[in-house]
């Protein structure tokens, strides 16, 4: 093929509004998703200058970060309440569609975008939220922005952006049974570090990626930002088209067939070149657990917690020491010996129906360890209802899990779902930063099956052993 291109270049070229010397490109934004935390100042900015939302029809809002996941109408924190009411008021004033707390479509913004079919291949998608990279799973160019840029997109439906550099992340071979997409993305970040993606858009390719379901692909792309990349994407294929068919905002009938043809043409061309490339073998990946305070501080469940004395530089020695101190862990301790107090299954990384099915399979007929508090927070009200139709709620409840309403919840503890100081949580979320789940809280990131297994045993276990014995 003459002049082969990556999907990143193809999407970019289709969205160029304006180019001039010494400036970034002005690109068109197809969809902006909005939530209550990063939007109030943007709407206020519009108001102060007498500006309008240019395309309310290309804007969609929901409430997720602050919402209670229990007793929906009791919002204890008056400041949270004001923030949610402000979103409601702003959406009304600027005619932006909103799935509020009472709406059946409500949920985590990165769960409902795909669910409603708003997320489609080839689109440029932004949101005032770094996990917007999730939508890249569909072959969209999706990235998080700050509130000033939220305001800019509301007012102009465009952004000034320098063309991104591209990086191919090739995953060879196949994942072993019971090793999940979460384990794969954690292993990629552990191998290449928390900033290998800075300045790049990642394209995940290779046999292992092709074999992932749509929801697993979302888990991968979701955590691109934990590698420093604003966006990560996967070229669309039959898996993508099958997921999208019939969803509310996706074209129907002949229009769908035409859309599929144009989506197929987006995939990266054979022989296209990238600015950088990394590779990993899927069959080497074991179930992962983070031990420290950033997502690259991660080891296989069979591993030992690192010893600062083995660090290569003084800076990295200090970083390990600080992390061990914060996490209350000893060097060289097996991670499997670490006991936990809480289990959180949820977040924009792992709260979709397939995540809940995987966790439910592990816990069915078992009981949560008496010393563990465990909860499931579905990613959206749609996921919640679907899970209830399948009887998953009963499996969780009978095992001793709490079964909650949809929201971001304990991933960042902006509502009342907080891990107390010094307590330890096995969490299916995306960040193990200091204080993320509560001031002084200790977070260990894992996949949904590993979280479920830890809930039963009270400490980390290799879920593969549990599956082997339960058959």
């Amino acid at each position, binding site marked *: 093929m003459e002049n082969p291109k990556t999907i990143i270049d193809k999407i970019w070229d289709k969205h160029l*509004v*304006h180019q001039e010397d*010494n*400036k*970034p490109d*002005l690109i*068109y934004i*197809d969809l902006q998703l909005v939530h209550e*935390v*990063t939007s*109030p*100042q943007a709407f*206020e900015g519009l108001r102060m*200058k007498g*500006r309008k939302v240019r395309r309310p029809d290309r804007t969609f809002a929901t409430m997720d*970060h*602050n919402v209670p996941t229990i007793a929906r109408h009791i919002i204890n*924190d008056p*400041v*949270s309440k*004001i*923030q949610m009411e*402000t979103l409601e008021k702003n959406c009304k004033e600027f005619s932006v569609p909103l799935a509020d707390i009472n709406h059946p479509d409500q949920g985590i913004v990165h769960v409902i975008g795909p669910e409603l079919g708003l997320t489609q291949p080839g689109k440029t998608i932004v949101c*005032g*939220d*770094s996990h917007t990279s999730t939508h890249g799973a569909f072959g969209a160019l999706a990235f*998080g*922005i*700050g*509130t*000033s*840029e939220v*305001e*800019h997109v509301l*007012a102009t*439906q*465009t952004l*000034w952006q*320098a063309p991104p550099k591209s990086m191919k992340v090739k995953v060879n071979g196949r994942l072993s049974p019971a090793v999940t997409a979460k384990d794969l993305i954690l292993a990629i970040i552990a191998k290449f570090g*928390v*900033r290998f993606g*800075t*300045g790049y858009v990642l394209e995940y390719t290779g046999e292992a990626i092709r074999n992932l379901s749509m929801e697993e692909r979302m888990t991968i792309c979701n955590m691109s*930002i*934990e590698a*420093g990349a*604003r966006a990560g994407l996967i070229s669309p294929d039959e898996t993508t088209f099958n997921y999208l068919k019939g969803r509310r905002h996706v074209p129907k009938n002949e229009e769908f067939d035409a859309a599929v043809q144009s989506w197929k043409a987006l995939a990266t061309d054979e022989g296209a070149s990238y600015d950088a490339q990394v590779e990993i073998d899927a069959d080497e990946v074991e179930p992962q657990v983070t031990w420290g305070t*950033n997502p690259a501080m991660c080891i296989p469940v069979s591993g030992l917690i690192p010893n600062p004395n083995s660090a290569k530089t003084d*800076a990295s020695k200090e*970083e390990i020491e*600080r992390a061990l101190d914060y996490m209350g862990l000893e060097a060289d301790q097996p991670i499997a010996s670490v006991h936990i107090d809480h289990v959180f299954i949820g977040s924009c990384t792992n709260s979709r129906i397939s995540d809940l099915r995987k966790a439910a399979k592990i816990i069915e007929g078992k009981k949560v360890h008496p010393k563990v508090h465990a909860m499931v927070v579905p990613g959206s009200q749609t996921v919640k209802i679907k899970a209830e139709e399948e009887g998953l709620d009963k499996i969780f409840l009978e095992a001793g899990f709490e079964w909650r309403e949809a929201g971001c919840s304990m991933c*960042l*503890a*902006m509502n009342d779902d907080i891990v107390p100081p010094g307590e330890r949580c096995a969490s299916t979320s995306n*960040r193990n*930063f*200091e*204080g*993320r789940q509560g*001031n002084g809280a200790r977070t260990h990131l894992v996949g949904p099956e590993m979280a479920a297994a830890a809930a039963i045993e009270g400490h980390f276990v290799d879920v593969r052993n549990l599956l082997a014995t339960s058959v």
Partner: protein
Amino acid sequence: MEPFKEHKGLVYPLNRSNIDTDQIIPKQFLKRIERQGFGQFLFYNWRFDDDGNPREDFSLNDPKYDGASILVSGENFGCGSSREHAPWAIQDYGFKVVIASSFADIFYSNCSKNGILPIQLSEQEISNIVSNAESTNYYLTVDLENQVVSDSEGFKATFELVNYLREMLLKGWDEIAVTLSHSDKITSFEEQSHS
């Protein structure tokens, strides 16, 4: 946005890598709907103990850094969440410049949209600045026009900044107004792509 041309200020060194925006401003302070008033929450969990008293072992609480306006840190500064509350807190506390050996992309962009100058210097340059700022009351002068950071003892480092951001900071542009001057192009793009 206030234009930024030149600034001389006291340096506060926070020599750690991978400082994420959850540390810069913890989530419990993201609920306010204003842009102002976030400085009191900057590095909150590092600055204050569980009772809200200043922690003596956190360097920003050292009176020698009172009035500091240039924050210097290690690699990957501002990683994690896209919250613009992080640069708002930094600015409201009194910082006008952030110098680091590398920055996270979203944070870097958020700084420049608020008139905070993000400057990338080499690890060696950072290490010199940090050791000076830890031992004395150390001042740097930042000249955006010429893209130079210097002190009164002969230290001088140049830095890169893409022309667009440089112009935006120097002139204090309202970026939306600039873009709206291209409205006709946006409209014709929408018409052509039938959207």
